């Protein structure tokens, strides 16, 4: 059914449709509306779940870990510092191969403290062994949230659904909410093979020494690589059920013969899509939407970059002292191509800076202007010359 919903509300409704057994809630801007909405659903009797209002994000993740290990579908959400406070647990959840789903309402990291959107938080935990999927709009946020449980439970890997804070979470827009019957058919009840159960008393979270640790990492790595299949399957099945796809691992738009590509993640893609269509005097370019950041779809990426001479990679975060994380990873992925496009890496929209549609033509000019990495929407007047 079509509805006009705020992103957070829509995500909460989507999560509720997945019938989570346990939801761990802790407030942080801009994620707060999600757990507020879930709390309201519980209060109104529209969601039957154990809602645990914890005392920190650290405990939120821990509660989700425990609940998942005990065999319940477990969900939590956070942002920014909250994700960092969870970091230790995030590694644990994935290392123990627990299918937790978490919404990351992406937000910058302090200091200086900043509550607005960028991708620094999920990037900071990119190595935590989770599947990370980015959403371009709230429809995708809804659909990906539901797909996330299916992917997580098929792979026994946790999934982080990344939605841009405020830009998506606080935007009311028209979207299609699936009904319960559809979701129930799509997402069977959770049965966890290693559930904590006195009848089959397993020990989870053991100590592994040097003689076996590399093997645990290989197994985990292999699982993440192989989760590509589950991600694609989940999206295809969703499309079959609803007619909507979120684009699997990545999507590409634009004319076949374009030689310039722009790659971005999250809500920026949405703005660029429109800019590509409506801005006068546009150049020929392809827009690549990267949905799966982990597993990193290097093969699919190389495929869509065939024929490009230049690729502009847009990061919404910065790895200080290096540049854009996404840029670096794309660059290394494309190295294996026979004729790889030249990669230009820019960062945009840090700490909630608005990225207007007019940024699109600037991006298309980047191949001529940027070697390596640059924050594209800097205002030089606001910096000491030495810091430029």
């Amino acid at each position, binding site marked *: 059914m079509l509805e006009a919903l705020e992103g957070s509300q829509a995500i909460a409704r989507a999560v509720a449709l997945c019938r989570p057994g346990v939801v761990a809630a802790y407030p942080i801007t801009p994620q707060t509306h999600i757990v507020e909405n879930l709390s309201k659903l519980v209060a109104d009797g529209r969601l039957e779940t154990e809602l645990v209002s914890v005392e920190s994000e650290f405990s939120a993740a821990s509660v989700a870990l425990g609940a998942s290990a005990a065999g319940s579908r477990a969900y939590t959400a956070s942002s920014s510092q909250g994700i960092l406070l969870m970091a230790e647990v995030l590694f644990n959840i994935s*290392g*123990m*191969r*627990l299918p937790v789903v978490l919404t990351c309402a992406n937000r910058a990291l302090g200091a200086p403290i900043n509550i607005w959107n960028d991708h620094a938080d999920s990037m900071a935990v990119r190595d935590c062994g989770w599947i990370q999927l980015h959403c371009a709009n709230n429809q995708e946020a809804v659909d990906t949230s539901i797909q996330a449980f299916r992917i997580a439970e098929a792979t*026994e890997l946790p999934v982080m659904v990344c939605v841009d804070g405020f830009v998506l979470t606080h935007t009311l827009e028209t979207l299609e909410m699936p009904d319960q019957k559809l979701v129930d058919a799509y997402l069977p009840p959770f049965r966890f*093979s*290693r559930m904590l159960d006195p009848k089959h*008393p*397993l*020990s*989870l*979270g*053991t100590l*592994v020494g040097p003689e*076996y640790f590399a*093997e*645990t990492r290989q*197994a985990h790595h292999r699982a993440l690589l192989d989760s590509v299949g589950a991600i694609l399957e989940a999206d295809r099945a969703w499309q079959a059920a609803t007619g909507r796809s979120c684009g699997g691992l990545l999507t590409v738009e634009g004319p076949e013969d374009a030689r310039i590509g722009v790659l971005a993640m999250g809500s920026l893609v949405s703005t660029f899509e429109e800019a590509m269509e409506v801005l006068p005097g546009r150049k020929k370019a392809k827009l690549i939407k990267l949905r799966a950041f982990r597993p990193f779809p290097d093969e699919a990426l190389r495929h869509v970059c065939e024929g490009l001479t230049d690729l502009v990679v847009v990061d919404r975060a910065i790895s200080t002292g290096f540049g854009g994380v996404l840029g670096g990873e794309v660059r290394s992925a494309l190295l294996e191509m026979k004729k790889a496009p030249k990669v230009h890496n820019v960062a945009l929209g840090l700490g909630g800076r608005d990225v207007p549609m007019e940024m699109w033509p600037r991006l298309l000019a980047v191949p001529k202007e940027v070697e390596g990495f640059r924050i594209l929407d800097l205002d030089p007047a606001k910096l000491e010359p030495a810091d430029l």
Partner: protein
Amino acid sequence: MPVTMTRGAFALPGTSLAFKTGTWRNTRPIHTHAAAPCHGACPAGEDQQEWLARLQEGRPREAWEALVAMNPMPAVTGRVCPHPCESACNRGQYDSPIAIHGIERWLGDEAIRHNWAYPLLDVPVRSQRVAVVGAGPAGLSAAYHLLRRRYNVVLFDAMPEAGGLLRSAIPPTRLPRDVVDKELGRILALGIEFRPRTALGRDVSLDQLRSEFDAVFLGVGAGKSRHWDVDGAVPADLHEGLGMLKEWLVVGALPTPNAVVIHGGGNTAVDLARVMRRAGVKDVHVVTASGLPGPDTEPDDVLNVVPRELEQAVEEGVVFHPHRTINRLIMRGSKVVGVEMVRLKKLPDGRGRKSRVSFEGTETVLHVDMVVPAIGEVVDPTGMESVLHGKDYIKTDRFGRIDGQAGLFAGGDARDWLKGLTGGTVSAAIGDGRRAAEAIDALLSGREAVEPVRPPIRYDRLNLAYYENRPRIPLPTLELEKRNDTDEIEGGPSGAQALAEANRCFSCGNCLACDNCWTLCPDNAVVKTTELASDGSHYVFDYDYCKGCGLCAKECPCGYIDMVPDE
């Protein structure tokens, strides 16, 4: 093949068993069943700890069965034994010793009351015949233990009834005659052929017996009073103690002087003193070279008397003069009018051997009109010449074997070890009879005689944290004014009291089955068995996992666990 990694590195339950932590061990715990001090001190060889354990389990019949495996007459010994077990009891260092004699007596009486059958050994019936001479405690014990082993036993005694000094020297106030009748009757009824009124040297000769029987045990006792004088002086009307006691017991006759001094420090002296005091003698003195129990007296120098008998004697007005001897008789003509006493003590000489030293200048005088020696008895040599060789007692080894006289054994008061605490008691005689039975069985079976000896447990090996102070049960004693010549003075405990008292036992040196080792092993390396393990405990060390920390040994209340170097 290496193990393959599980998803998320989960592990299956209890798989640590594959990791044998026993290899970490330097020392290992072992169960060491050491001798409890009561057992070590018991002349009869009883293991009081063991039968107290059965009582703790609430199984009095099994307790009695364990008891009579050593001593067939607990109703008797429970009354007359000076119970060195109680003096040795570790509980004495903690609060007060277990009232072992009271419990023993109760068990003996229970067995009589319920007519519990004496358990005989499950061995083939033997064809050999053994003669036992003397139906006192030693002879009865030998006969019983031989019968237990399924020998044919013929028991000879000069008297019309079995019992020996139980009937001739112990007042019924200490040992009621119906107890003797019943307990001894039950023993004889097991199948011992009893031939009363048959005196050695009169009705039958030793040679005759040795030719008719495969073995002969002499439990003839010491029926003849030891010669007594003071510097060669002897009163004209001298009565000796044992004879007086026997005469009183059998015909009821007793002289009643105004004041009497009895010289001696054994049960005969004390029993006689009490009988005379009750018969109305005003001043009854006991002069003894031994000391009274107390801190100043070495254990081997204490009056060889049941302690409670001593207390009762004092209560009844008998005056004791310890560490003294009679130095001189003060005579008027051939009649005694007093004695001069002097203090003495047993002291080590230059070679470390203890001998009596009297102290000049400590002489005192007692005015008495009678002096009675009760300094002990020797074997009546009639018919025994070939084994006494002119000595007072028969010389044997600890199994009663007589050097150079194969097949001939002796024990009880007749043998020459009357010194010290363990000899000269009913219990010692019972122990003699039992060991002789073992030696006879060994001889007739062509094997070595054995008497298992376990190392004693030290008090400091117990972990006292696990015991509670609990008072010893009080045993009833006939009030002074109600005491007479026939009624038993001391009473026994009730069944509930006996069981409660048994529960005070520390179980020194033996497993208490308290679960401490099982409970406190951090490594789950002590496993419990509801049946008995091979060592009789309920616990087995799993050396695959025991790391040798020693907690179990330290926390075993009973000292039953030793840590020994691991092989």
